[in-house]
């Protein structure tokens, strides 16, 4: 047996290096083995475990040629201040070679409040662009052809409203809904678990989501109706395995809900997309991407009986890890982002946002955004990493790690199934608790220097106060409030009242799809806050599970 010989030689090697290590000890607390050999992937079956790119179980990627045909979409997440300002940034990004848009909304927008709401004070235009009515959306996409660009919108609880506004703007540009390309995040479960911009309780939230699946399968067929997101779970402190496990568990809950609502799995599953974090440990990240595709393919084929290969594919957008940026020596972040970009590309992402070096301090300036975009372009055009499909496939280490992460993922999915699924697990606080534990462990490892963060707990220097940070003009709030007041004065208020009343009735009738009714309301310039206000009245609001 070849393996017997290899086992013997491995034992010899281990004995030898342990003896040497007694004199020159290895670093402590290394997460993985010293060396990986064929012994670590015993039972590995190429055709079963990897197969070919573009084929089940998609371990090697979802497209047959990956980046040899077309690079990933370089999609920079942007948005701040007003629609007027953000429109300028979007056009700048497209002119600089960005190949897709990604809209950041301010917090009042994400939580369904208008800019004139008292709770919005101090928050207007801060972390993204403020959208109150269709008017803002028209300005946001002014001179941008929605028939040509693909747009991702980070919007969750009010996703239906923003999607309706996007469809309405396109219609005004003469672009029919079935020609639109883009994504709404629309992932409420991770909002409860990790990101915090929830509005309604789980039941009506899941209804809104399945309403969108159904509506888009008929009218906006090229739209990605959800971006099931591990990114924020990871940012909140989870491990790599937890990131994909909790996210795939969320995915299972959405598919379950849609099937319960009477949809055929193959009618909507091909439009589900995912969102991963590209974190610091390059090879662990690559293995995570590969494992996640294999798990999802099995879930869809074996658990849900999906027939269409499109339904089995885990297509993913990626963002480099914001929480790994340091406020100390911010130029070092350029290097971190480059490594994270390499991981996402070797992992086979479909699109990527790269963070800017100054984001641990403020929103990024135009210059630092350009460096972040250039980082992607350098990896694409110069590094060679994009020239071969799944370049790390077959590495003993990466295959063993892919298997390990997959196993940990299945273990969590089993646990969550036992708790009654992702919704129940979140309501019980289980997922939040697991994430918090990991976050705390990370922080303690940093503080005890078991984990070194360059410039933070080692290699520090005395630094000057950083200069040239982007500041959102404090006058944005007033500007936005005035614009809203003007829209409210000029629109047909009787029509608004009628459409909002129709929405209220539809909310009360669970058999109704809310998308057409919301579309009617946005077209007469009913505001986001008014529409969400009606839904708040009927659906109530989510009470968070708070625990330490």
């Amino acid at each position, binding site marked *: 047996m070849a393996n017997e010989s290899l086992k013997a030689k491995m034992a010899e090697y281990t004995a030898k290096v342990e003896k040497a290590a007694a004199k020159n000890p290895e670093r402590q607390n290394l997460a993985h083995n010293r060396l990986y050999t064929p012994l670590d992937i015993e039972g590995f079956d190429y055709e079963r475990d990897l197969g070919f790119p573009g084929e089940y179980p998609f371990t090697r990627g979802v497209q047959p040629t990956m980046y040899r045909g077309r690079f990933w979409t370089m999609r920079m997440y942007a948005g701040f201040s007003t629609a007027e300002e953000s429109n300028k940034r979007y056009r700048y990004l497209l002119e600089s070679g960005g190949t897709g848009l990604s809209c950041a909304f301010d*917090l*009042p927008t*994400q*939580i369904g409040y208008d800019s004139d709401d008292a*709770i*919005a*004070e*101090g*928050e207007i235009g*801060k*972390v993204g662009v403020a959208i109150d009515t269709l008017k803002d959306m028209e300005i946001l996409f002014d001179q941008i052809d929605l028939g040509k660009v693909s747009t991702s919108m980070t919007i969750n609880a009010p996703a239906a409203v923003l999607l309706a506004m996007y469809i309405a703007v396109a219609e005004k540009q003469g672009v029919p809904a079935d020609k639109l390309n883009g994504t709404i995040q629309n992932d409420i479960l991770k*909002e409860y678990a*990790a*990101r*915090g*911009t929830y509005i309604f309780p789980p039941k009506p939230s899941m209804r809104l989501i399945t309403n969108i699946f159904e509506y888009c399968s008929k009218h906006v067929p090229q739209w990605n109706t959800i971006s099931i997101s591990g990114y924020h779970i990871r*940012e*909140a*402190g989870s491990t790599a395995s937890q990131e994909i496990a909790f996210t795939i568990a969320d995915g299972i809950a959405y598919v379950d809900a849609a099937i319960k609502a009477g949809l055929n799995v193959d009618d909507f599953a091909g439009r589900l997309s995912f969102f991963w974090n590209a974190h610091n440990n390059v090879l662990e990240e690559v293995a995570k991407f590969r494992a996640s595709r294999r798990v999802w393919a099995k879930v869809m084929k074996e658990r849900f009986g999906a027939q269409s290969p499109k339904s089995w594919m885990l297509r993913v957008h990626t963002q480099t890890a914001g*929480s790994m940026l*340091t*406020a*100390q020596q911010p130029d070092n972040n350029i290097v971190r982002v480059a490594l994270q970009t390499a991981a996402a590309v070797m992992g086979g992402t479909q699109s990527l946002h790269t963070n800017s070096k100054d984001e*641990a*301090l*403020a*929103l990024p300036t135009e210059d630092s955004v350009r460096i972040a975009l250039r980082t992607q372009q350098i990896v694409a055009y110069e590094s060679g990493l994009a020239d071969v499909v799944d370049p790390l496939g077959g590495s003993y280490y990466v295959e063993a790690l892919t298997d390990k992460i997959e196993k940990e993922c299945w273990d969590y999915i089993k646990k969550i199934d036992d708790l009654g699924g992702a919704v129940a697990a979140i309501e019980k606080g289980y997922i939040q608790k697991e994430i*918090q534990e990991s*976050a*705390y462990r990370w*922080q303690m490892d*940093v*503080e005890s220097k078991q984990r070194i*963060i360059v410039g*933070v*707990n080692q290699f520090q220097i005395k630094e000057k*106060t*950083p200069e040239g*940070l982007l*500041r*959102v003009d404090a006058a944005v709030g007033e500007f936005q409030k005035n614009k809203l007041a003007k829209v409210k004065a000029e629109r047909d208020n009787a029509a608004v009242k009628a459409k909002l009343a129709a929405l209220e009735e539809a909310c009360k009738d669970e058999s109704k799809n809310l998308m057409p009714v919301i579309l009617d309301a946005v077209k007469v310039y009913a505001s986001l806050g008014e529409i969400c206000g009606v839904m708040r009245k009927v659906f109530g609001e989510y009470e*968070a599970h*708070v625990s*330490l």
Partner: protein
Amino acid sequence: MEKRIRVLVAKPGLDGHDRGAKVVARALRDAGFEVIYTGLRQTPEQITEAALQEDVNVVAMSLLSGAHNTLFPKVVKMIRDKGMKDTLIIGGGVIPDADIPGLKDAGVSAVFTPGTPTGSIIDFIKTNVK
């Protein structure tokens, strides 16, 4: 027995990023403080009310949305207006250095930015709490 220091960890504003708040809360608890965490999206009124109800010695606010210049001073003012003159009020989050002097002038005793070891927050509280 010496009375334990009571800390309210509060999330004013609308942002949902509470990794930092929860890590700090847990570290303070492990350091022997009594810790109450408000949860997300607390208005200045709610934070003040919680500080009163829980009779805390310290209010530690965490905010990552950029609304700190509006909300931190508002919380300080409300807490002082309710007669809690000795309550130590501190803040943390993604806060540009340039904003810190203004926040201190408004009565925020210290502002802790990314990369701060939890030990420095614990030491600051122990040294400055009344």
